[in-house]
């Protein structure tokens, strides 16, 4: 069964046509590299899937069911099992690690059997367990996220996406801000998601990373799909050609 199917999606912002009829398919356990120059429409396409924007036309199916725009929202997307890790990480820097991992999904208990209060102890315990599963090195889940390094913040963003049994994980430039060893860690994580049958869409400018983990590569240029090939059957040179439009 196809996990995600995008059919002829278009989107414009004012006079600018960002997506001009884009289609793609993703199977469970498949890792898709989504490439393209700045402004090619990668992030917009993914934000449509994750419920930030509705498309102007076209349809998106998830697990065989059409996603109902414009009611689709980030909350709905997360409920369906679509998680997105944003390029700017979308973290609340003054709040602590546990709060960020559970953002929008805080466990509550009923104080005096009545008043719903956030269960901080449980949040901290589960956040710590999630980070340990990732092998992330965070001094404490009580640290404000803003006090952590770039790689540590990335781990928090990843832990947030992976802690609630996602079916599709979209990563927008997850390795851009990382040190070499941390990059390797993220790539290994993507392989692990694949083994678990989770679909992954990886947006990245770092072609070696893309070639290392993806099954298929899709290139967008000026809002249109210009290439969609198995990774094994293409080369970095060909992909660069598609990105810059040399074909």
């Amino acid at each position, binding site marked *: 069964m196809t996990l995600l199917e995008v059919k002829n999606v278009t989107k414009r912002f004012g006079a600018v046509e960002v997506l001009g009829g884009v289609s793609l398919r993703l199977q469970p356990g498949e890792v898709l590299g989504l490439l393209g120059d700045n402004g090619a429409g990668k992030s917009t396409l993914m934000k449509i899937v994750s419920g930030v924007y509705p498309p102007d036309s076209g349809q998106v199916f998830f697990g065989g069911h059409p996603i109902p725009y414009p009611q689709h929202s980030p*909350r709905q997307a997360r409920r369906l099992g679509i998680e997105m890790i944003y390029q700017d990480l979308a973290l609340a*820097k003054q709040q602590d690690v546990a709060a960020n991992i559970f*953002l929008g999904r805080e466990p509550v208990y009923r104080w005096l059997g009545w008043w719903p209060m956030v269960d901080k102890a449980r949040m901290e315990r589960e956040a710590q367990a999630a980070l340990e599963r990732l092998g992330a090195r965070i001094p404490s889940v009580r640290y404000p996220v803003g006090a952590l390094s770039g790689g540590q913040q990335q781990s928090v963003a990843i832990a947030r996406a992976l802690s609630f049994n996602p079916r599709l994980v979209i990563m927008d430039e997850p390795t851009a801000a990382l040190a070499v060893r941390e990059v390797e860690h993220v790539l290994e994580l993507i392989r692990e998601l694949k083994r678990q049958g989770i679909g992954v869409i990886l947006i990245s400018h770092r072609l070696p990373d893309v070639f290392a983990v993806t099954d298929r590569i899709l290139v967008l240029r000026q809002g249109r799909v210009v290439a969609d090939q198995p990774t094994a059957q293409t080369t970095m040179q060909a992909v660069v050609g598609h990105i810059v439009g040399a074909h």
Partner: protein
Amino acid sequence: MQTPLPTRAPQAPAIRLESVLVLLGLSLAMAIFAPNFVSLGNFLNILLATSVIGVLAIAATLVLSSAGLDLSLGSVLAVAGVVAGVLGVNLGLPWPLGIAGGLLAGMLLGAVNGLLIARAGIPAFIVTLGMLSAGRGLALLVADGKPVYGLPAALTFLGQGRLLGVPLPVWIFLALVVIFHLILSRTRFGRYTLVIGDNEMAARVTGIDVERHKIWLYVLSGGLAGLAGLLFAARVNAADPTAGVGYELSAITAAVIGGTNLFGGRGTVVGTLIGALIMGVLQNGLNLMAVASFYQQVAIGTVLVLAVWLDRIRDRRKP
């Protein structure tokens, strides 16, 4: 790679140590220099004098924590007071209707603020600056430009009555501090308030309904201002359309002295209580020392800037 996490870091404190030290130091200085400062009666006086501004400061804390601003608190206070006064006295309706009307008027003006900010996308500064003026005008219109005297006894009891020797407004203020402290620090609503103030985009993409949340925050702010208006009118036994001019700035000052980040993302109601008490002790002590009120304004302004400065220094020392 597995590294054991070190045992727990301390949780972020609800109150900044600096502000407690300032409050204690200030109280100690007043105890030495101000005649009759140390007495139960004076202690209750300080709390009573702090209660109206304190209720507004709770509202300011909530709104500032979300990176918002409510400059209309003082005007909404006046509207709520005169609505209660006109309903209860001029129209002779039963007092519960007066109280309900005052609170509803506050919430309604808050809802107008919230809708314009969240749905129309107009900056909070502009919207609430507009309401600062429009609300004052409304208060004068409703009251026909003059105070309403002779409020119902039940209403004045709210401002002048005592329970176990402690004035009712103090009970109400302290109860609200406890309730809203728990709301801001322990409920989803409170956490989302801080997250919206911290990084609105993060709130949006994690499924928080930011617009609806903001509307409710301003409704709450208006409701608290309305309650403050009732307390104020009840205490002076008059619903004055010119009441509360400039109170919004005192409320914001108390919140900021208490550690609320003016740009959102951080704030606690207990911190604000300390901030409001610092202002109360300062004013009370200087009054007892018969220092002219002009100096008091200078002192409060100085404390505000000092509090934020201390905060800066502390933040810079952190990793």
